[in-house]
């Protein structure tokens, strides 16, 4: 048996299903009946899938495993390259998330757009500034001024408060 990412994920699914079944065992009938009647078969089938995955890693081709009825993946790239680029993009997503958490949407949205276009996409200043401005107008116009979304209070509120003092109609 060879440990593959697919096998590890199937094990993860089985563990989650098991945890859901176990935690539902003390619930009263009305609350627990549906979770248990779905959870137990899911757990059993996840375990069967786990055994099959362990067995199949030796027997079937990758292409057979990938025909899932879902959108297709480009398998021509090496796993190392996929991991490196995937991690880089995950880094940008996490950067955006923590930016929003720490500095708020009004600072993070334009800064993220500008930095990504300039340093990841390596675009010229002209296009970068134009697209950042368009994104900012769309974000403020639609989500702030029309929809009046309630924005969360950032952890470091100084920069956003300064921005709002310059543009009091924001947020």
């Amino acid at each position, binding site marked *: 048996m060879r440990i593959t990412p697919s096998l590890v994920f199937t094990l993860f699914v089985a563990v989650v299903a098991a945890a859901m079944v176990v935690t539902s065992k003390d619930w009263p009938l009305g609350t627990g009946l549906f979770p248990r009647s779905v959870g137990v078969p899911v757990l059993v089938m996840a375990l069967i899938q786990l055994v099959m995955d362990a067995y199949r890693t030796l027997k079937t081709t990758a292409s057979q495993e990938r025909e899932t009825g879902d959108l297709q993946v480009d398998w021509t790239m090496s796993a190392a390259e996929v991991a490196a680029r995937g991690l880089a993009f995950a880094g940008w997503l996490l950067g955006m998330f923590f930016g929003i958490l720490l500095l708020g949407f009004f600072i993070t949205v334009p800064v993220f757009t500008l930095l990504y276009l300039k340093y990841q996409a390596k675009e010229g200043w002209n296009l970068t500034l134009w697209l950042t401005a368009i994104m900012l107008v769309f*974000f403020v116009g639609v*989500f702030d001024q029309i929809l009046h979304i309630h924005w969360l209070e950032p952890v470091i509120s100084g920069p956003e408060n300064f921005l709002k003092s310059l543009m009091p109609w924001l947020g």
Partner: protein
Amino acid sequence: MFEAMADGLTALLSVERFLFMMFGVVVGMALGAIPGLGGVVGLALLLPFTFDMDPTAAIAMLVALSSVPVTTDTIPSVLFAVPGTVGSQATILDGHPMARKGEAGRAFGAAYFSSLLGGVIGAVILGMLIPILKPLVLLFAAPELFSLGIMGISMVAILSGRVPLKGIVAGGMGLLLSMIGIDKQEGLLRWTFDSLYLFDGLNIIVVSLGIFALPELADMVIEGKQISSVPKQAMKGVGHGIRDVFANWWLMLRCAFLGTWVGIIPGLGSAVVDWLAYGHAKSTCKDAAFTFGTGDVRGVIAPESANNAKQGGALVPTLAFGIPGSASMALLIGAFMIHGLQPGPSMLNEHLDLTYSIVWSTAIANIMATVIALCFTNQLAKISSVRINILAPLVTVVVFLAAYQATASIFDLVTVLLFGLLGWIMKRCGWPRPPLLLGFLLGGLIERYLFISVRAYGASFLVRPLVLVVLAVTIATIYYSVKQERKVRQLTGDTGEGE
């Protein structure tokens, strides 16, 4: 009746009312194209402004606004695999691969035109059903709705490709995820970990954005190309897509009827209709098992005709009984009441002309939306040739904003990131994502109607005639899809060893 139909149309065609209706069309189109928003947001925004308006103009504007977002929600679905509204998730499965093959224009043409025909068919059926609404809607009680939920979940068998066991497990996990939050029967908390955010359960917009949008965006960024590498000159255009709809008119018609039917039944919701239509098309179209999921235009026509037709169907219980089948219909009822109209029998008697002006509004709004959308299709299709690194930050910001506006909590962003990671791993590890989403969508509905059915009828709810019919259709569908799958295996020489 014909006099009321004519009066309804005449009332709508005054310049002022028509302009208000067109305003509703334009706002609805804009909201459909922005992921996470939709008709509900638009109705909530415009409702307060209708207080002093003429009732016919106000209702026409709001009906138009709620009818057309499902036309333009195709744009982000096809270009970026980001569902524009919850009703356009299934369109991604073939619409996005079409864009990647340089056929974005064709996908848009097919989607808009089938949306137009679906919307008009839905309106026509609504108009025809007005005299016989009551017995039709009363046919469906909790047991029948439960059996329809089971029929919906059976689509997992069709949506799982050649990994049925993974599909069933994914569907089951979706059902389990739908149970997170307050249990509606006993009022107890399930898997909330004392988090206030989870009390109301996971939000469907956030989950679908995470499961589909972020993984597709990540894969496009990883590949580092534009959405389509086909040269602009070779891109197939909108005319091709329109011809596809005519070539598949019978599929479009079937799915439009299916969409109207789903709309008529309160409680099934727009999030399910596209998957039902897609599953129906995949199980009935010739060679669909080979081509669906790889950019088959029939996989676009089916959900798009159904989700527009559903809007007409959803007006049936709203107008006849004042039963809103969705949040947007609940807001429409609010609009009726603001203008002194009581949904129910009076809408079919003394206000019949207004009821028919609603039917006309639905039909005309769909036509106008398609005409406007078709004008911009070829320009939109060109976005697929822009390098993904330019589009990625813009799409990322829109996905984050769309997720955040769901409940305005930082946990919306945590959830979208976690489901993004889950979706990406599922895709890479050969686990189908559509069954997970289908299970999540249907879980609450199945549990609710099962509980009501057992309480009201005991085990005998299973032998009600319509329940038996729906369950028989479900079994036949599963049998047919398994047979199709076997045929594919035989033709491709795959014995399914180890399966």
